[in-house]
């Protein structure tokens, strides 16, 4: 069948196998020439694509729960949505969550996903105590910070290229409510939003929505959204039925003017410069999950989500340049999200490093590849890197310059026979 990542580009023909236990995984690995693991396919580009895909969705048992310590073990195909549904009513939430809950535990580890609290709590691997990994020969290895360390640090953020994550043990975080106290602050430009991020460094959650089309003195105008867990012991929450987009929007609906209008409306929503409200965990963390397959609004040709990070000291200058380039290109971006990351961790090829990250969506249109190549150059000039979980097009050179430990990662793959058996379209493209 034809498959793609969340960005619906590229699309390829592939056969998918969903083993329901470990011995079926082993048989499959013996049988296929090469393959890549896939969870819920929420990575945007080609990290989970190959002509043979091993899908983890039927490996979906919760294996153990320690309700005193908040430690769970589960198979890798269990989704974060299932964990929230099961454990939030009992007062436990994820230490780190991405902007959608429809990702698997395996996918969250493999992309070492980050959330709105990266500046305080780091990325998903911070909550991972251990996991079991299957290598191409079928051997199962228990990896943690004290056992098989090298594979632990390679697998967290390793984009599925170190083997199949079978199950994991994860630390949850105690919360006193299923609600978030949210504060929204308006920023007139890039300088202001940077100051606000710094000022609110001790706030648990922070993220900004930034208007990519604003120019000149308005460049970088944005809304900063801050959040802290409420403590009201209210655990009533409903994961209401999703809306969904039944067909591909004609891509014309997303031309520059409609996006500009949307941006303006959004910006004006915060009438006063600071607004406060109580918002459910689900709507605070996962606003887009309320609209099922929103990725269809970009039309059938698909879109690219371009996410990069720049080191803190060069962030302001680099972002000015990139925003200028984006706004003059007219390739309107519907959503752009800005966030301050905390310290880099020890994983070999995890994305986050201390500095500012920006994620913007662009539908596939004439001129987009030239624009993105140009942006790549700016990112590299400022010592930044691109996020593999979003990528569908970067060149090997761009990757290798952004991720200095890539060679160590590649050597480990060669040593364990992974480079022959476990590959994605992405890993081939970027020379991993």
């Amino acid at each position, binding site marked *: *069948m034809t498959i793609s990542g969340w960005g619906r580009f590229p699309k390829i023909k592939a056969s998918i196998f969903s083993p*329901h236990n470990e011995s079926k995984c082993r048989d499959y690995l013996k049988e296929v020439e090469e393959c890549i693991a896939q969870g819920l396919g929420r990575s945007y580009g080609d990290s989970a694509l190959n002509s043979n895909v091993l899908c983890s969705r*039927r490996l979906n048992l919760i*294996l153990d729960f320690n309700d005193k310590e908040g430690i769970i073990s589960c198979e890798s195909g269990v989704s974060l949505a299932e964990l929230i549904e099961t454990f939030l009513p009992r007062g436990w939430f994820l230490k780190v969550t991405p902007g959608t809950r429809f990702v698997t535990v395996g996918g969250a580890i493999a992309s070492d996903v980050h959330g709105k609290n990266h500046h305080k709590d780091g990325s998903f691997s911070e909550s991972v105590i251990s996991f079991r990994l299957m290598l191409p020969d079928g051997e199962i290895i228990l990896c943690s910070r004290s056992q098989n360390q090298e594979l632990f640090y390679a697998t967290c953020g390793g984009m599925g290229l170190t083997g199949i994550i079978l199950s994991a043990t994860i630390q949850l975080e105690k919360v006193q409510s299923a609600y978030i106290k949210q504060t929204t602050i308006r920023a007139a430009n890039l300088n202001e939003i940077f100051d606000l991020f710094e000022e609110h460094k001790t706030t648990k959650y922070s993220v900004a929505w930034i208007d990519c089309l604003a120019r000149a003195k308005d460049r970088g105008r944005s809304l900063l959204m801050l959040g802290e867990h409420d403590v009201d012991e209210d655990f009533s929450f409903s994961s209401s039925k999703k809306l969904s987009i039944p067909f591909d929007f004609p891509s014309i609906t997303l031309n520059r003017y409609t996006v500009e209008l949307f941006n303006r409306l959004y910006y004006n929503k915060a009438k006063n410069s600071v607004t406060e409200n109580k918002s459910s965990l689900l709507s605070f963390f996962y606003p887009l999950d309320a609209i099922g397959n929103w990725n269809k609004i970009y039309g059938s040709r698909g879109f690219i989500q371009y996410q990069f990070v720049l080191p803190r000291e060069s962030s302001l200058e680099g972002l000015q340049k990139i925003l200028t380039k984006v706004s003059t290109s007219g390739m309107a971006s519907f959503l752009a999200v800005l966030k301050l990351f905390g310290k880099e961790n020890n994983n070999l090829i995890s994305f986050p490093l201390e500095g500012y990250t920006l994620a913007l969506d662009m539908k596939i249109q004439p001129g987009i590849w030239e624009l993105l190549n140009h942006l790549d150059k700016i990112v590299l000039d400022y010592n930044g890197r691109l996020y593999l979980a979003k990528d569908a097009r970067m060149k090997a050179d761009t990757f290798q310059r952004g991720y200095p430990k890539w060679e160590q990662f590649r050597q480990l793959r060669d040593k364990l026979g992974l480079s022959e058996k476990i590959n994605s379209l992405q890993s081939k493209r970027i020379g991993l």
Partner: protein
Amino acid sequence: MKLLVLGANSDIGSAIAGAFAKFEQADLILASRDMESLEKKAKDIEIRHSVKTKIIQFDATNFSTHQDFYNNLSPKPDGVVVAFGYLGDQKNAEQSFDDAKKTLDTNFTGAMSILEIIAQDFETRNKGFIIGLSSVAGERGRQSNYIYGAAKGAFTIYLSGLRNRLHKNDVRVITVLPGFVQTKMTAALDLPEKLVATPEEVADDVYSAFKKKKDIVYSKWFWRWIMLIIKAIPEIIFKKLNL
């Protein structure tokens, strides 16, 4: 509520168990052959839904053990789900009588054997419900799977008779007719993506049929219309089709 799930290792069966645990807080008796896998499934459901579970060995084709199996259950369940099944391979079943017999024994004879015992109990107690997982494959014989289809067809007819018999006793019998479902039974088949349901979707359909007091439920719903068309094709044409 206490629910007995026979063939509880089946992906659809354990999803149905999960739905009753979630919505009815049902305590579960999970019965199947592979105890190691059953233990994991039971734990998963206990953690997710905070219900009690018990696991018991059960082999549908070991007919002579069925009476003891049911006698030993205490207390008796309020409802039972028959979820075990064996698809096999049509070509193989054509050539091997043993395999064809296994298909019949599992999907029909085994189900009938245990359900007769349970039906007697429900009949005397004037309560209970029975959910049987049959298949749309039992609605019309096709060259690609008529041996399995014959077993499921027999099971569908059996359930309809049982429903008729137990109606006066207030015992409900629900026939479930799934189309294509993404489970370990079909993992090796290349199924048309748009028509495939997940076990959880089938479980939701079964649970809502239970709540709405339906007798027969297709899952997903569109199979009702697909089968209506397939059944309407005159045999003179049907026999020439490559189905």
